[in-house]
């Protein structure tokens, strides 16, 4: 079974966001694989270790530097990569169209991706890809079992945990709690350099979203800070909760 994993290169989640010329500055920012996608890569590798997946193809859309994200996934254990060269201003619609076109050419049995990217927080692209390919999808999974042409997924649904079954080929998006991604080994990093990565141009379509401006939220200012005995602090904190916040005590 061929598995495609969609990854996106994002800022490290510890990164402080700053603006330059009205845009988010990437100066000095450490770039990583989106943590939710990294879990999808690990999930695919585990499927291969179980003998369910036979080939793992990792794909990303965007600028040339996305190649680093592909190499990291290859070092973890993916077999080959595809870089879909696309303007970084592409919106979720345009990215889904570009990725789906490249995925279609591969005829996979399973498409994995993180359910959301830690940067734009859109949580749209995997589901859009499923719609374009005409595949079923399941979002936010924490476990998967593949047998008899079906994927049985445990998902973190609203108000509980659901087990959902879909026929494959399907698009499945991961929650970070699915697994603990491995660190690439030295051997893996060496091997990754020799693994094939194809570069294709994105299908050109117009965005459906226009960014008007980007801003930073008003900085929160520090208020009272008490350094005193615990009992004094606790009494004053209780007083603040009751009289300033006006909490209701059950």
């Amino acid at each position, binding site marked *: 079974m061929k598995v495609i994993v969609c990854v996106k290169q994002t800022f490290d*989640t*510890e*990164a402080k966001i700053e603006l330059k010329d009205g845009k988010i500055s990437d100066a000095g920012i450490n770039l990583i694989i989106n943590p*939710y996608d990294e879990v999808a890569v690990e999930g695919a590798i585990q499927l291969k270790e179980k003998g369910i997946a036979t080939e793992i193809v990792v794909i990303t859309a965007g600028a040339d530097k996305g190649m680093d994200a592909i190499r990291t996934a290859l070092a973890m254990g993916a077999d080959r990569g595809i870089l879909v060269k696309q303007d970084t201003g592409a919106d979720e*619609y345009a990215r889904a169209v570009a990725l789906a076109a490249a995925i279609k050419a591969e005829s996979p049995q399973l498409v994995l991706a993180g359910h959301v990217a*830690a940067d*734009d*927080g*859109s*949580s*749209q692209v995997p*589901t*859009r890809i*499923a*719609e*374009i390919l005409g595949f079923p*999808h399941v979002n936010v999974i924490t476990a998967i079992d593949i047998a008899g042409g079906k994927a*049985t997924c445990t*998902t*973190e*649904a*609203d*108000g*509980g*945990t659901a087990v959902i*079954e*879909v*026929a494959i080929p399907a698009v499945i998006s991961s*929650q*970070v*709690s699915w697994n603990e991604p491995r660190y690439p080994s030295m051997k893996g990093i060496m091997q990754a350099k020799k693994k094939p990565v194809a570069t294709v141009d994105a299908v050109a379509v117009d965005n*459906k*979203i226009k*960014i*008007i*401006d*980007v*801003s*930073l*939220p008003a900085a*929160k200012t*520090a*208020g*009272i*800070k*008490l*350094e005193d005995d*615990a009992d004094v*602090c*606790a*009494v004053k*904190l*209780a007083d603040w*909760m009751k009289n*300033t*916040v006006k*909490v*209701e*005590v*059950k």
Partner: protein
Amino acid sequence: MAGTWVFVEQKDGNIRKVTFEMLSELKKGGDEVSAVVFGKGVAGLAPELAKCGADKVYVADDAMFASYNTGAFVAQIVAMIKEFSPNALLFAHSFNGRDMASRLAQKLETGLATDAVAADITAGKGIFTRSIYAGKALAKVEVTGSPVLATIRPGVWEVGSTAGAGAVVNAAVAATAGDVYQVEKSFAATVSARPDLAEAAVVVSGGRGCKGPDGIKLVEQLADLLGAAVGGSRASIDSGWLGHELQVGQTGKVVLPNLYVACGISGAIQHLAGMSSSKFIAAVNTDTEAPIFSVSDFGVVADLFKVIPILVSELKK
């Protein structure tokens, strides 16, 4: 064109608060506001929806809609959009809301602004403020496709009291069994007497400083006294003291309660991103240099194991 639709989030007839928030906010504008509800035996929900501003309540009543499934819900709403031509549709930014909105957006080849915290919808134009980088930045975007689609973060708007006419429009059931591609084998509801983390008015969170289940118990005790949801920083989730669904921060949930109480949380950037928009923030931490104090309205430099028990008994007075 028929104004803006709000897709109603409900389970077993219980409507989620975010639905009322969306109806109330839209009612402030001049356009027609409609609620759209799918389910089995849900027509009786119309008066409740009207009370918060629904001029019309579109109802699709069928056993197929008894629980959420993407295929049937999207097929049904697509048919209704074709028949009634709304300018814009708002969904809750929830598991089901973003799932349905994303598949719908692609089917209609339109734009979708997810996790919006502000909206300006007039005459078929939709401009939204979206939270990006888990709230570290805000992007103002215009959806240029049609209809305009967005998912709205719970808790950003108030529930109002301006009523609408609430005229019920029964929609023909257009979805068929063939549209269903997900089979729900089981559903285990989270058994908790506490409110949902994303919608709670008060959140009490525990971090590394809780040192283990005993510290978390204190956090829970305080939470229950305040009718609060319990949350955690990455440290307490990774240590297995709390389930992942309770993680607050960039790889967890973004919350905006009236009061956030951070217990033993130092305040890593990715955690601050998830909670610093809360109206009031209190923090208890032994480290006076902890970054959490830079966003706290009321900070206490002390041991939570000593502070919380006294705080609990003081609050009970």
